[in-house]
């Protein structure tokens, strides 16, 4: 079938787009693990997360587990993803958003006592924006 120049160019553009998309999907799937910014506590406990090198773990700070050392910057807390927990130790300045129930990402290594020793803690904030009154009202409604 004879094709005019315009349809040829159209076909070329479509083929390029399809080819690039396919290559991208394959590359992203292959590098899936490297594209994850952090591992969850479940992945740390079941061994999916690599041990021996520094990794990041992310999750929520478990309410009531934050213990601050009285004469150093040492902080201990538990991190959860809803299913599993891990204990974290960190010595340093915490971001302002760090609090119980908050999402955080910690970078560090597991020691032999299965405690994750972090040398960096970043706070993750959620996608919700509202005035404090509304947040309080929502919390009150939830408690009922």
């Amino acid at each position: 079938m004879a094709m005019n120049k315009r349809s040829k160019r159209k076909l070329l553009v479509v083929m390029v787009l399809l080819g690039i998309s396919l290559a991208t999907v394959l590359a992203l799937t292959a590098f899936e693990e490297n594209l994850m910014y952090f591992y969850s506590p479940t992945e740390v406990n079941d061994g999916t997360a690599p041990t021996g090198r520094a990794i990041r773990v992310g999750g929520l700070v478990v309410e009531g587990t934050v213990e601050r050392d009285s004469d150093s910057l040492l902080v201990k807390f538990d991190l959860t993803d809803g299913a599993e927990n891990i204990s974290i130790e960190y010595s340093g300045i915490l971001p302002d958003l760090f609090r119980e129930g908050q999402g955080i990402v910690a970078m560090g290594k597991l020691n032999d006592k299965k405690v994750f020793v972090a040398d960096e803690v970043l706070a993750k904030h959620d996608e919700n924006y509202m005035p404090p009154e509304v947040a309080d009202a929502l919390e009150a409604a939830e408690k009922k």
Partner: protein
Amino acid sequence: MFKRIWGWIQRFSSPKHFYSISGKMIPWFAISAIFLGVYGLYMGLFVAPTDYQQGESYRIIFIHVPAAWMSMFIYVVMAVSAGIGLIWQIKLADMIAAASAPIGAWFTFIALVTGSLWGKPMWGAYWVWDARLTSELILLFLYFGYMALQSSIEDQRTADKASGLLAIVGVVNIPIIHYSVQWWNTLHQGATVSKLDKPSMHVDMLIPLLVMAIAAKLFYAAIVLVRARNQVLYRERNRQWVRELVEKL
């Protein structure tokens, strides 16, 4: 019927016709962009309520989010125009693409810088290599690549072809930026507004944000027309009508 539409497109997209029509549109876009921009900034910075978690520092959202949306929107406009220029060889489309690139690059830069300034107090870091931040940085490099190809190739038609192909190839990055926060674990939080669900933002914050987003679009419309008109004059500089126009000045 098809022929008639085709003829109409060709007439409308003639650089000369575009030059005269766009000249009349620019003031309208510019004035409404300024009006909405001032109103949106005032509402966002002074009237919108404080956030329950982030306090006052969340207000950078009124710059950061419109800039980030524009960085992707302009890229799509650029890639589609480049595609139209490549397939149907409409010169005006190539000019729109070339005119869009620096504006898109600036919006990307603003999104990255404001995000970084926001990241330090909230996350505790100016920069992290998570999927969202990295893919947005790649977007900036795609704009740079397009601009570099445009300016380094002497012959305009070859330059349009090469840079246009790059723009089309780079379009795969747009869904990656948008869905990065969903597909992978990222430090950057998920979508607040641009999702199928109801926006997770109080209406008094949402309205200024949307006003700013519209202002940014109108600003882009005004600037891209100004820049495209320059492209028209430069690329058609040897045409009779441009010479006459210049002589009149």
